[in-house]
């Protein structure tokens, strides 16, 4: 008989992978699909969680309202982020600037700067300690499935991640907005010449991606029951690894790689000390970069 221990570890790994996927979807949309270097996604996630927490402690609304509030803050944050850290770099519209890699990659620093400012500001306003979420809002009631124990949040996160994935795939492949996003990503100058409003397309992508980031943040806050300013860092790294492994531009690829990452981490805990489980993520990143420079599911784009 198969040892139920491994089944339990597999379930934990899937649930862990799902939490990474939740973060990776919005991250990949902006960073990978739109092809804009953005390192502030982790802070959008944190902002979403804090927005939800503030709403909960202020008015104790139903959970749906909490998530809608987080989505609104996420949209606002995505819009502001784009305005502050990205738009200034697009003010030169000559061909050389638009083609310049340096112009595109300078947002690495501007987005990082925004992320540091946001994190420190949250620390000043809320303090850096973990804040607890009221217990009635938590989504971690245990659920027994055969020999395996999961919590309600695992199913909610699965549902939300699946909805996000399917929705985005539909948006990107079946709608004009999606077509515009892909066109801008492929060749900003060309997109401009054929009459696509590149500014609006970029802002839309930021708003949608950041709403997903904020939703991920509040869901993870309710799932783990703790909200704190530095909470976006680790998920950000894991999402980045999943995205690179998945080949940058492929959202399904990122989700599959997030699941692989989660399962590998929980399985690795069985064989090596838990202290080493983070090595799995970084190990995968290095192996991908060496052996699959286009990612596991990418292939059509320049090297990662």
């Amino acid at each position: 008989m198969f040892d139920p221990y491994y089944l339990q570890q597999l379930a934990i790994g899937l649930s862990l992978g799902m939490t990474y996927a939740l973060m990776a979807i919005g991250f990949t949309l902006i960073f990978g699909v739109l092809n804009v270097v953005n390192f502030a996604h982790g802070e959008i996630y944190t902002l979403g969680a804090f927005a939800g927490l503030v709403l909960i402690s202020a008015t104790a609304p139903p959970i749906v309202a909490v998530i809608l509030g987080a989505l609104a803050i996420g949209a606002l944050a995505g819009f502001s982020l784009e305005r502050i850290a990205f738009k200034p770099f697009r003010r030169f519209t000559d061909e050389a600037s638009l083609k310049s890699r340096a112009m595109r990659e300078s947002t690495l620093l501007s987005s990082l700067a925004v992320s540091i400012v946001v994190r420190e500001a949250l620390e000043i306003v809320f303090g850096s300690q973990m804040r607890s979420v009221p217990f009635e809002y938590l989504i971690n009631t245990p659920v027994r499935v055969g020999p395996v124990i999961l919590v309600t949040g695992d199913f909610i996160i699965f549902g939300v991640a699946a909805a996000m994935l399917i929705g985005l795939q539909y948006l990107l492949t079946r709608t004009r907005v999606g077509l515009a996003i892909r066109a801008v990503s492929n060749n900003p100058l060309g997109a401009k010449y054929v009459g696509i409003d590149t500014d609006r397309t970029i802002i839309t992508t930021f708003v949608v991606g950041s709403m997903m980031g904020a939703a991920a943040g509040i869901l993870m806050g309710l799932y783990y029951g703790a909200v704190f300013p530095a909470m976006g860092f680790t998920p950000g790294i894991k999402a980045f690894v999943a995205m690179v492994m998945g080949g940058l531009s492929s959202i399904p690829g990122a989700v599959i790689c997030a699941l692989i990452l989660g399962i590998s981490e929980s399985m690795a805990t069985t064989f090596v000390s838990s202290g080493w489980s983070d090595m799995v993520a970084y190990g995968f990143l290095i192996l991908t970069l060496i052996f699959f420079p286009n990612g596991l599911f990418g292939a059509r784009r320049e090297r990662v």
Partner: protein
Amino acid sequence: MNFRLLTLTTLTAAGIAGSAFAADTVKLGYQLPLTGDTAQYGQDFRKAAEIALTEFNAAGKPFKVEIVFEDSRSDAKEGTNIARKFVDDKEIVGVLGDFTSGVSMAAAQVYKDAGMPQLSQTASHPDYTKISKYQFRNIATQAQEGPYNAKWMATKGFKNVAVIAEQTDWGQSVVSGFSDAVKANGGTVAFSEFFNRGLKDYRSLISKIERAKPDAIYTGFFYEDGAQFLKQLQQLGIKTPVYSTSAAYSPKLIELAGGAAEGVHLTSNFLPTDPSPNVQHFVDEWKKRSDGAVPGQFPAQAYDAVRIMLAAVEKASPNPTREKVRDALAQTKDFPGVTGKTSFSADREAEKELVKVEVKGGAFVPVAD
């Protein structure tokens, strides 16, 4: 630019300028994490230090004391830089901090060469005070707490135990201090492992611990990790008793873990419910500055550490020097603090009395056994 540090240094600078004309001033340094992952601890230490300092300066002593706070971010490199800065400031006669054993030990190398007395409120790695005669601490070490807890668990009949701790200098001293004592008492350590601080999902680790079927789990973690661990233990329906060190003793543990914290056993050397007047005075002052929150053990240790340092400065005055402050610190005997009476042994260890505590009905309750 670190905005808070900027404000802080400006304030300190203004303070120095303002008091230069007043009575004699003695300067102390305090290195602690005010930003970054462990900022919550450093913020608490500063609050505790400010309470102690305000009281001291209001007491009409012949001189005033100032504390220069510097943010180490719990980063060893940053900690050494601050140490050099403090050492270069000829007016500073003593240093408090840092928070973690790792950073305290890195900075200690600088203080050792410069002959600067250093008193950490929390560095509990056994090697810290072995660095030189200038290192003191105001916390029970794991070499003291581990055997104490091992004996406690043995009297409860737990022979086969699991031990986990965070992957830090301190965590390693938790595991070694405890495991050696368990083996010496004739028990067995069924499972022993380290995890990364800030890990969110302990379920893999918990499943692995349970496969080893221990009678009880001994844990070296702080309240953030502790709360996640306990919650996930409860989610997985595991009833194995959990024991922990005084590091997890914080009201935040119960706030974050809720019902999952019920029945956790740990040791402490500070009880905010202690009716003695100096404890109640500190708790009241703390509540005033923290929206009514009750202090945990770490702020209490910081409060005592600052007061021990202030007492040493007073003893070394007039004209205290680093050497005189060191000698005065070394002579500290039965200092009546909020964490019990503190004396420094010949190897500069604080001899602390530990109290056994259990979480019952959402509160830390002292227990006899």
